[in-house]
Each structure stands twice: as C-alpha cells, then as structure tokens.
C-alpha cells in the first residue's frame, strides 16, 4: 500500500483501530453507492443531533432565565411590601399631626397594597417563607386594628391617648413587622443569588455538552471521511501498482483487495486479465520458441543448400571445363586439321556448352542472392568503363544481327564506388536482352548523371512488352510467353538478378515499353553506395 509511505499521518491512522474499521467497511458486501450514502447519512445524522442538542440548550437557558426573572419579581415584591409598611408607618405618624381623613385613607390604601403584594409573594413562596408571611399577616392585622383604634382616638380628639397607643402598641408592632419583612426580603435575595449560581452552572453545563457533541461530530465526520476515502483509495492504489507491474511485463500476478464492492469486482477482473495475459504471453513464447527452432532448422537447411550448390557448381563445372576445353582445342586445330564438315557441329557444341555455363551461373547467382550469401565487392570504378566493357562484348553480336548499336556516356561523370563486375553484368543483361529481342532497328545504351545517381538506359526497337506484363518482367522465370523462350532462348532469370543487384546497390530499376515498337529499361545507381568512404 503506497498510502503508508506517501502520507505518514495516514499510516499512523491506519495502525489505529481506524485501520480495522477501514478493512471492515471494505469487506462489507455492499455497493460503493450504498457505502457512500451511509457515510453521508451518518454525517447528516450528526448534524441533526447537533441541532436538537442546540435547541434543547437554548430552551433550558430560557427556562433558567424565567426562573431568574421570577426571583427578581419576588425580590421586588418583598421590597414593595417593605415600602408599603414604611408608608403605613409614615401615614400613621402623620395622622397624629394633621388629623384628617385623607391621611387615614392613605394608611388604608398602603395597607391594601401591603396585603395584595404579600398575597402575591405568598402564592409563590416556599413553606418556610409561608410561616414568616403568616406571622407578618397576623402582625399586620393586629397593627391595623391598633391603627383603627388610633384613628378613632384621633377622630375623637383624644390625641394623647392616640399618641400613647401609637408609641406603646403600634410602633413595636410595626418594628416586629419590619423585622419580619426584612427577613423575607433577605430570604428572597438569598434565593435569587442561589438561583443565579445554579442558572450559571446549568448554562455552563449546557455549553460544555454542546461543545463536546460538536467536537465529537467533527471527529466522527472526519473519521468517516477518512474511512470511506481509504476504502476507495486502497484498491485504486493497488490497481495502479498492479497495472505498472503489468506494464513492466510481469504477467500472471493477482491484485488482492479486501473490498467486496465494485472495486473488489474490478480487482478480480484485473487479476483475470493478468492471468489471461500470462497465458497469452506463455503461448506467444512457446510460439516464438517454435519459430526460432524452425528458423534454426531453416538456417541449417539453407546453409546445407548453399553448400550443396557450391559443390554442385564445382561438380558441374569440372566436366563442363573438359567439354569446353577439348572443343576449343579441337577448333584451334591443336589435334590437327579439322575436316570442313566437322566445323559447324564443333561450333554448336561450344555454343551450347557456353549457354549451359551461363545457365548454371545465373541459377547459382540467384540462389546465392536469395540465401543472402551474395556480397558486393565494393571498389572505385568509372561508369564509362562499364559501358565500354558492355559495348565491347556485344559489338560483334549486334553486327551479326545487322543492328545499329550505340553507347553514349555523359562527359565529366565522377569516379563511383560500387561493385563494377556486378553492374557490368546488369548492363550486359539489359543490352543482351535488347539485342536478343530486336530483329531490326537499333539498340542504344546511355549513361547520364541524375542528381546523386547515375542513370543507365537501354532502349531498343524490339518486340516490346504488353502493358499488363510490364510490372512482372522482373519476376523469376518470366518471359512474355513460352514461344518467346523457344525463339529467343534465355532462362528468364537475367532481369531478376539484375534487379537484385541494382537494389543491393541502393538503386532502382524500371521499364517502359510499347508492344511492337520497342522497350527502354532504366536503372539508377548511387554515385557512392552506402558505407562508401568519402570521395
């Protein structure tokens, strides 16, 4: 797995239990599609849980805040009660001084307010507070009856008695009520402080829980992302490694991945492909071995063939040497005068002997060329030298047939590099053919420079070649028809050998002809064959 080496963090994570999860998820028999869907669903669920927890937290905080508000309210009410009590005391004292009904009414009004507020506090009070409130209420009722007495005394003008009553009864009563109310206020304040602390704690708890859940969600989402990506990346890496192995020519291995999804399928197909490649490779190797053993046999056979040909050539030439030797000596009258009637048969023996030699030479040349044993003997030569040699050897034949025979060479041709003997043989073949197939008219040889080549042309006014056969004149044993062979002779190998020699020089040969009008054969030879030393 290349991920291990490529990414140290991934390698570390894979050694943790996360690695086991990766392998487990890979091994789950489900499609890639489903696996991805489940991973996304997991993340979506986490988001939903986060949302729910947040809503819950907000709600709880609002509840706490309500509680705090109510505590505030109670504290306020308690303070209101304290205030109303103070006002009552104030108005009672004032009633003694100003002695009017309005002030007395104010006492009653404050008393009512005191009672109302006390009732509200009582409604939401705890049991311990309720006792205090009961005490306040009974003390207040007593105080109110004392106040009523005082009020009556004031109305009756008995101010001294009223003042006494106020000092001896009402004032201590109010003081005790005040003390009770003070305690109540204290109590409410304490409750509020306690509540505030608990609300703060609850809020802190909520935020901690929310943060923890958020952190877990992020970790889970990252984890599931890592797991799912590893599950998909491993087989891709494995396939990559495997394919580069294949590309380097190692067939037959298998790619193993824990996945039992599309990637698992893909790996199985890759392994199958590799096995198939290995099979084909082995087959191909067997075939190549077979071919090379056949080749070795062929090479052996070909070697045997050329040895056979070399021996045959010698074996054929030895008696032919004797035949031609004795004939020549007879005709040269080495054995005495030849009777006139023997002269023609002796000439026929010599002609046919030479023809047989020519045939043997051509067959051997072609065999050697085709076996790849023919090698050019490269040397410096001149084109005029070749043309002169051909003209010299064919002049008498042309004269015998009464044909016009010309040879022209462009002046100023440079020295050339190639196998002069073989090129002479080529030009001799073409010119010899031209003379052979021309009954009357002329045969012309021409050599001229053509770029980096010299072009040799041989034109005649002979029988010509039918258009449809002009492409095959260079094939082996091709003559236009069998009657031509009878009339003009020849093996039909000359043009084939000529073409091979021209091509061995890196040249080209072609023919133009009109049936009954004549033919022109051209071949071009590079001034210097490939591999020649610089001129």
């Amino acid at each position, binding site marked *: 797995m290349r991920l291990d080496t490529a990414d140290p963090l991934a390698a570390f994570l894979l050694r943790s239990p996360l690695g086991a999860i990766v392998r487990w998820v890979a091994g789950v028999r489900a499609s890639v599609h489903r696996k991805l869907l489940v991973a996304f669903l997991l993340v979506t669920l986490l988001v939903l849980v986060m949302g729910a927890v947040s809503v819950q937290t907000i709600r709880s905080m609002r509840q706490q805040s309500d509680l705090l508000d109510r505590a505030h309210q109670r504290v306020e009410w308690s303070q209101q009660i304290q205030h109303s009590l103070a006002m009552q005391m104030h108005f009672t004292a004032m009633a003694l001084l100003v002695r009017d009904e309005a002030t007395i009414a104010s006492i009653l009004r404050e008393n009512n307010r005191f009672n109302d507020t006390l009732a509200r506090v009582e409604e939401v009070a705890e049991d311990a507070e309720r006792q205090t409130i009961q005490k306040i209420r009974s003390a207040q009722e007593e105080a109110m009856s004392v106040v009523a007495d005082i009020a009556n005394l004031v109305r009756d003008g008995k101010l001294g008695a009223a003042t006494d009553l106020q000092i001896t009864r009402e004032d201590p009563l109010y003081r005790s009520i005040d003390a009770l109310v003070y305690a109540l206020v204290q109590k409410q304040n304490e409750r509020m402080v306690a509540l505030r602390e608990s609300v703060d704690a609850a809020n802190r708890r909520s935020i901690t829980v929310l943060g923890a859940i958020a952190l877990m969600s992020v970790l889970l989402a990252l984890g599931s992302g890592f797991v799912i990506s590893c599950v998909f990346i491993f087989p891709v890496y494995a396939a990559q490694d495997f394919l580069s192995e294949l590309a380097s020519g190692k067939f037959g291995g298998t790619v193993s991945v824990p996945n039992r999804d599309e990637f698992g399928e893909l790996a199985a197909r890759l392994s199958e492909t590799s096995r198939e490649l290995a099979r084909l490779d082995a087959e191909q190797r067997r075939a190549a071995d077979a071919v090379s053993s056949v080749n070795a046999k062929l090479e052996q056979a070909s070697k045997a063939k050329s040895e056979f*040909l*070399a021996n045959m*050539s*010698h074996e054929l*030439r*030895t*008696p*032919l*040497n*004797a035949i*031609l*030797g*004795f004939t*020549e*000596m007879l005709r*040269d009258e*080495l*054995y005495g005068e030849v009777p006139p009637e023997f002269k023609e048969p002796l000439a026929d023996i010599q002609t046919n002997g030479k023809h047989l*030699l020519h045939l043997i*030479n051509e067959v*051997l040349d072609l065999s*050697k060329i085709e076996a790849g*044993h*023919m*090698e050019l*003997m490269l040397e410096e030569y001149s084109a005029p030298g070749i043309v002169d040699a051909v003209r010299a050897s064919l002049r008498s034949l042309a004269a015998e047939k009464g044909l016009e025979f010309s040879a022209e060479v462009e002046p100023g041709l440079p020295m050339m590099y190639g196998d002069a003997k073989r090129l002479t043989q080529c030009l001799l073949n073409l010119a010899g053919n031209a003379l052979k197939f021309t009954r009357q008219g002329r045969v012309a040889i021409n050599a001229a420079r053509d770029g980096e080549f010299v072009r040799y042309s041989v034109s005649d006014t002979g029988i010509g070649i039918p258009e449809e056969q002009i492409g095959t004149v260079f094939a082996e044993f091709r003559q236009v028809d069998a009657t031509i062979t009878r009339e003009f002779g020849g093996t039909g190998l000359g043009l084939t050998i000529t073409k091979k020699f021209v091509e061995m020089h890196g040249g080209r040969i072609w023919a133009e002809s009109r049936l009954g009008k004549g033919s022109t054969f051209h071949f071009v030879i590079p001034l210097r064959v490939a591999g020649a030393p610089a001129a």
Partner: protein
Amino acid sequence: MSPKTILYVEDNEYNRKIVRQLLSKTAYRLREAIDGENGIQTALADPPDLILMDIQLPKMSGLEATRKLRADSRTAAVPIIVITSFALGGDDQKAKDAGATAYLAKPYSPRDLLAKIREILPEG
C-alpha cells in the same frame, strides 16, 4: 637451357589431359599431382618453375596447399596460378590472400590459360 617445368595439381583426369595435350605442343615440361598433399610433396621434392593449382582438391584444398608452399623457402618464390570456382563468392580475393600470383576462373579457355602461363613464365 633445360625446359621449364610446370606442376599441375588437379584431381580430374580429363582436365589434366587437356593441359597435358595443350602443353605437349610447347616447350614446357608438365608434371602432375592429383591432390593437395601430393601436390606439396611433388613441389617440395623438386620445385617446379610454375604451379597451376585447382582450388577444390581432395585431402587438402588448393588454398591451403598454396599457403603451405608460400611458407616454405623452397617454393616461396614459385609463381602459382590458382584455378578458382566462379560459384564461390570472393574466391579471387581468397586466392590472392593465400599468396596466388594469378587466378583463372573455371571453366577456363585453354587458349587463355596458355596465354597466362606464357605471360608469367616465358617459354624460353
């Protein structure tokens, strides 16, 4: 002046006969050998004035025999005409490399052979 001797090394009886008859009308004296080893023995025993050596011989090839004769002081200076076989590519070069003075392709014309002999070894 004694007649000049020519040694012809050739296994074929008819070819030997041609040269025998060809030289019978000249002042040359012919000696014959029928294989490479026989040719060397004959040449070393009494070095001739010229040797005609066929290239393909029993027991030892003409090229091998030519090399051996060239290596021996008794025959190192004797001209050798090697009769090559046209079929074996590069025979001319091989003959030259072995130390041949001249070479002639088989089948040769007796007339040409005689001309070559006279060119190298004047009849005297």
